[in-house]
């Protein structure tokens, strides 16, 4: 019978690989277990959300640690290629050692916002996984040039490397990365402590021709010279984050318009940027799907330019742009109907008219930021989808009626550069919000 043949069983199971539909197959019989395990657990994801309500996540983690502690490896262990553990603050060197022992064939490691391990563990990782393709140690804070350099040398097949805020990383590491990782497509080296300078970026551009995505968030020493280098070496650049790179000037930013295939651009807190520059970029790069202009203080002109050119926009953040009015927002939502996340916090002049148009035209909207948009009424919010995640700051008397209409209220902090955390306002937390609404600024 067909179902007795492992190759055919495997073929059938591959159609169920998505969204864990294959999970019950593990328990049907020995053969089914052997065939389904490797397919099901090719990717292991333990994704925390940084909030205080991760009880389910903690249980998962505990069980996963239990699996690591057993003497016998799980049967699917050699098939695991992709391991993601995020928002976990106690991932120690010892746990990393166990992971390495049990899962020898990992090619994708994602430890974003996870900490607890340091150079020792990273060096072990680089020795154990010479074929590593993807590594994310965003916000680890425990790593230094010492291990990053060794990593670069040992894992020269890396295509994705995200070491923003990972610790004390300087130009030294960048030089090593440039000269080893020739297949690199994404490099993220943002971070407050970083001493990344124009020189090291020059090295990257000399040795890494395949770069498509760069994250220089907070690289305060970079100047216009870097932009010039980038635009010359990577005309096909797709993603660029220059948030908080305060030494770059408006003229420098304008050069970005030459990367016409840009899809993702973040220019947070670059207050000196003129509307004209942003308009030029937006007009030259019609494929932009993600645009973060938080604290760039843009005006209606920019939003109208976006409406004209960037029909594929999915994420737009203009937090802090106090002079934005209904007219440009209305125009934009009519043309950019694919928007999923729209951050309009502090756009205080926006009224119900804009909300009405948002409700009418943005059918894919998942998140709407309206903090300090004081001219918006309850009736307007009623027009929005009840499942929509909304960030607001409202007077106490209004809150209770809103809770009938929104399922999550986000109390994000300043600087929303992506998905905000969602906090369910129940019980205690609800009262805290009531008592000191200003703390949620």
């Amino acid at each position, binding site marked *: 019978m067909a*179902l007795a*043949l492992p190759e*055919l069983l495997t073929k059938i199971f*591959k159609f169920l690989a998505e969204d864990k539909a*294959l999970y019950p197959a593990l*328990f049907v019989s020995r053969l089914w277990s052997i065939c389904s395990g490797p397919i099901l657990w090719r990717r292991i994801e333990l994704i925390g959300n940084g909030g205080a309500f991760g009880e389910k996540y903690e249980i998962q983690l505990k*069980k996963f640690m239990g699996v690591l502690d057993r003497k016998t490896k799980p049967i699917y262990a050699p098939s695991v290629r992709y391991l993601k553990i995020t928002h976990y603050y106690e991932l120690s060197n010892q746990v990393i050692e166990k992971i390495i022992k049990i899962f020898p064939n990992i090619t994708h490691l994602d430890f974003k916002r996870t900490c607890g391990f340091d150079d020792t563990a990273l060096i072990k990782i680089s020795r154990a996984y010479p074929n590593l393709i993807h590594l994310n140690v965003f916000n680890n804070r425990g790593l230094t040039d010492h291990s990053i350099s060794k990593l670069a040398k040992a894992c020269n097949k890396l295509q994705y490397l995200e070491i923003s805020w990972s610790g004390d990383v300087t130009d030294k590491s960048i030089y090593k990365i440039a000269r080893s990782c020739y297949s690199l497509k994404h490099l993220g080296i943002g971070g407050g402590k970083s001493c990344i300078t124009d020189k090291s970026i020059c090295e990257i551009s000399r040795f890494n021709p395949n770069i498509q995505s760069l994250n220089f968030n907070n690289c305060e020493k970079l100047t216009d010279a870097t932009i010039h280098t980038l635009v010359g070496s990577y005309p096909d650049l797709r993603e660029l984050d220059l948030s908080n790179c305060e030494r770059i000037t408006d003229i420098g930013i304008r050069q970005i318009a030459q990367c016409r295939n840009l899809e993702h651009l973040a220019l947070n807190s670059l207050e000196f940027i003129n509307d004209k520059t942003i308009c030029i970029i937006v007009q030259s790069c019609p494929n932009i799907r993600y645009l973060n202009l938080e604290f760039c203080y843009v005006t209606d002109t920019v939003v109208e330019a976006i409406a004209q050119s960037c029909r594929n926009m999915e994420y737009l953040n203009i937090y802090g742009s106090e002079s934005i009015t209904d007219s440009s927002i209305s125009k934009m939502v009519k043309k950019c109907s694919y928007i999923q996340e729209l951050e309009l916090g502090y756009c205080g002049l926006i009224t119900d008219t804009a909300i009405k148009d948002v409700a009418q035209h943005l059918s894919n909207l998942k998140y709407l930021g309206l903090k300090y948009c004081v001219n918006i009424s309850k009736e307007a919010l009623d027009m929005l989808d009840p499942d929509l995640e909304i960030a607001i700051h409202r007077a106490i008397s209004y809150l209770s009626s809103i809770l009938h209409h929104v399922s999550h209220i986000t109390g994000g902090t300043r600087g929303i550069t992506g998905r905000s955390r969602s906090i369910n306002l129940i019980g205690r937390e609800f009262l805290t919000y009531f008592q000191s609404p200003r703390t949620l600024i």
Partner: protein
Amino acid sequence: MVTEVKRVKLTSSEGTEFQVDRNVAERSVLLKNMLDDVGESDCAIPLPNVTGPILTKVIEYCTHHKDDPPVSHEDEFKKGSEDIDDWDAEFCKVDQGTLFELILSANYLDIKPLLDLTCKTVANMIKGKSPDEIRRTFNIENDFSPAEEEQVKFENDWCEER
């Protein structure tokens, strides 16, 4: 200019002979390679692994799909188990035994679209069922000892969806 439709002969396991157009037969990569090697011969190709009724079904599928574009190589792990068109869905409304025979034949004859279709169909039969229900549907024996069952549970139950 008249283009002659070439016919080929196939023999099932019971010895029944089937005549099909060459382009229909060539939906099977196995047959295509054989015909390319054999050339213009008039001999029948024996298929000892395929019974008459199954071969009839296979030919029915290949005839309906004879003008399909060549199969592109998809990323294996992006397959979903939806989007089966109506004709194909009707075609697969057969008893389990026939369905499994079709899988085996499609595998042997190397007809990827038919193999994908039949596997997808079985996958849809598995989807959403509990282990017990799956065993009943396909008449599979639970050969786990209680200890083994515990072990499988322990090694796997930390995932989110149950």
